[in-house]
């Protein structure tokens, strides 16, 4: 029993891993074309951007909030940087591009953080508002035109072709995997071993208790949103690099899909619970389904419904388990009310 419980993991990561393995096995049986390196390379490639966004969503969710402004921040930061670079015909190298975008993203995150922490407003509604503001400013004042591959700064275009591993005839592993894996590890380490990371969990668990043990709630929240803004910008630049174009109309509208993946990964929407490993698994599972449903003969129109069913089943199991574990005290309460 003990081993089983450990395998299951604190946030049902084990269950999720088992589901992924089952899905992979089923798909491998259904289609011989599935078990090729190409499938896994494209899975890795399509998971990169959602994964970075999901990490940001995870951090906010652990702190007890919901952020829907991250796609707007991402495309704002990436598009603004690339647009400026191509307008000024100045290429600040790929590191420079990332740095500028991250600063822009962090500034938007600061706005989110200050409004949320200072005025103590519901995070969903504040970020809903900032999403509109950010998208509006981007399309009105920065630009609304599509930047094609030819007009992208050279460094961005080159990075788009950087492959980590080339398998002739089977595809390639994209070079952006390296920074994304690094970010995943850094966030994992931060959540597990730093005071800041533990503070986020504490605030999400119980903000009042966190305040009483001496955690500076407002300051932690502001830093958190700055960090999440920076993460979103990072993801936005990777999105531009992978897509080899910059379109200001994209990304916004995908926020609920990312949140769904994070929830599937075992994070609690009430805060205080969630893990980087679970989030990675959640994103991979969603991408696995999105990418390969067609391969096993299910029409692509079923993708959304499939993810929806998966999400509902996932949260139902969690809810039912929570209800069962609470049955004891409820019974006592009922007896008291009878007496």
């Amino acid at each position, binding site marked *: 029993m003990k081993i089983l419980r450990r395998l299951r993991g604190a946030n049902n990561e084990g269950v999720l891993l088992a589901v992924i393995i089952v899905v992979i096995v089923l798909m491998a049986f259904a289609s011989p074309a599935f078990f090729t390196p190409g499938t896994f390379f494209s899975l890795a490639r399509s998971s990169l951007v959602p994964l970075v966004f999901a990490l940001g969503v995870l951090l906010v969710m652990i702190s007890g909030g919901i952020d829907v402004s991250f796609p707007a921040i991402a495309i704002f930061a990436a598009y603004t940087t690339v647009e400026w670079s191509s307008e000024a015909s100045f290429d600040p190298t790929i590191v420079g591009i990332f740095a500028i975008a991250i600063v822009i993203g962090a500034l938007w995150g600061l706005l989110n953080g200050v409004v949320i922490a200072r005025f103590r407003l519901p995070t969903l509604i504040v970020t*809903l508002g900032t999403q509109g503001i950010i998208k509006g400013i981007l399309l009105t004042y920065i630009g609304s035109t599509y930047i094609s591959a030819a007009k992208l700064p050279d460094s961005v275009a080159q990075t788009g072709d950087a492959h980590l591993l080339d398998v002739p005839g089977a595809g390639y592993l994209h070079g952006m995997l390296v920074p994304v894996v690094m970010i995943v590890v850094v966030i994992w380490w931060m959540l597990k071993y730093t005071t800041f990371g533990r503070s986020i969990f504490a605030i999400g668990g119980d903000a009042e208790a966190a305040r009483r043990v001496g955690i500076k709630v407002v300051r932690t929240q502001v830093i958190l949103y700055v960090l999440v803004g920076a993460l979103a910008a990072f993801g936005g630049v990777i999105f531009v690099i992978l897509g080899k174009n910059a379109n200001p109309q994209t990304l916004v509208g995908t926020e609920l899909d990312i949140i769904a993946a994070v929830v599937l990964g075992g994070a609690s929407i*009430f805060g205080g619970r969630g893990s980087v490993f679970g989030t990675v698994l959640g994103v991979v599972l969603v991408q696995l389904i999105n990418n390969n449903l067609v391969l096993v003969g299910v029409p692509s129109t079923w993708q959304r419904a499939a993810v929806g069913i998966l999400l509902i089943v996932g949260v139902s199991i969690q809810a039912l388990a929570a209800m069962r574990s609470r049955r004891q005290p409820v019974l006592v309460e009922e007896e008291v009310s009878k007496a």
Partner: protein
Amino acid sequence: MSGNDLIGLRNANQKLDDGFAGIISRIQVPRGAGRMVLLLVITFAFFAIMNPRVFLNPVNLQNIGVAAPEIGLIGLAMMLAMLTGGIDLSIVAIANVSAITVSSLYTAISVGGGAQTAESLSGLIILAGVVMGALLGAVNGVLISVVGITPILTTLGTMQLFNGLALVWTGGLTISGAPSALQMIGKATVIGIPVLFLILLIVAVLLAMVVDRTPIGRKIQLQGANPVAARYSGISARRTLMLTYIISGLLGGIAGLVFLSRNPSASADYGSSYVLLAIVIAVLGGTNPNGGFATVTGVVLATLTLQVVSSGFTALRLSAYEYAIAQGVLLIAVMIFDQLRFRRRRRASPGSSSETVAIATVKRGKDGTRP
């Protein structure tokens, strides 16, 4: 001056005071509604002054009346879910499925039995759309009240599911065809007022009566205000939530019919920006996202205000993106304003609790979903 005169003066004064008090108490409508009347008047006046020729044009005013109902209905559905401390992210998906149901039923019947038969059955077909909305709402209701999933997660999932099923149903295409009765309603006006707008008003009045005057409405309010108290007053959370989401789905279904009456075609991804817009409308209309407080009047006024801003922006040749900025700024400004006023009132009263409690309650939401 004689004594009599003085008494007369005093009486007159007294009468005047009473009169004023009466007027003031009559003006003092609930929080959301009062503020929205002011905002609506200000925005309307602003655009009327800035560009009277275009904005005050009867055609423009009629357009406001035609465009407002669909988002108004969705906003009302969102308000109802928020009133119990929940949220309904699936409402636009429900509206679309209902529109697709009506459209494809109509097309199927007119292919099978001729256009005449389809027209004669249009009442039933329209009813099927509304029933479909209520049915999908019931799916939400079961997941929330029986299985015990938090509303936001339930509707996040069902949003994907309903939207996904709509995609499967239509194959991702826009399907066309709708009973001509619906199209007639979409175009008809009564003394210059679009019938669609009248439908919104009628639905709003009915909903207001349900929320304020019926036992179930009271239960919905109490469930949102204090689920524990509701439980100990013998209110079944399960039945209350079930009914809330069925009504919410019903409103979504009606919104789907409005989609069709404006434009006889349906698709899975119509109005994808409406989910967020509905939340904006509900909150602007004074709905407390944590439950327990909302007014139908406030939501209807908020719908009108946003529609006035939208068409006013068009009259001033501002873009849809600038409208998005205005929406965001309006939403955050109203929230901050509310919060500051709330805090000031709290500071004035003794025994205010510690600072972070507000965050805690905001974040935790109401745990009212578990029976």
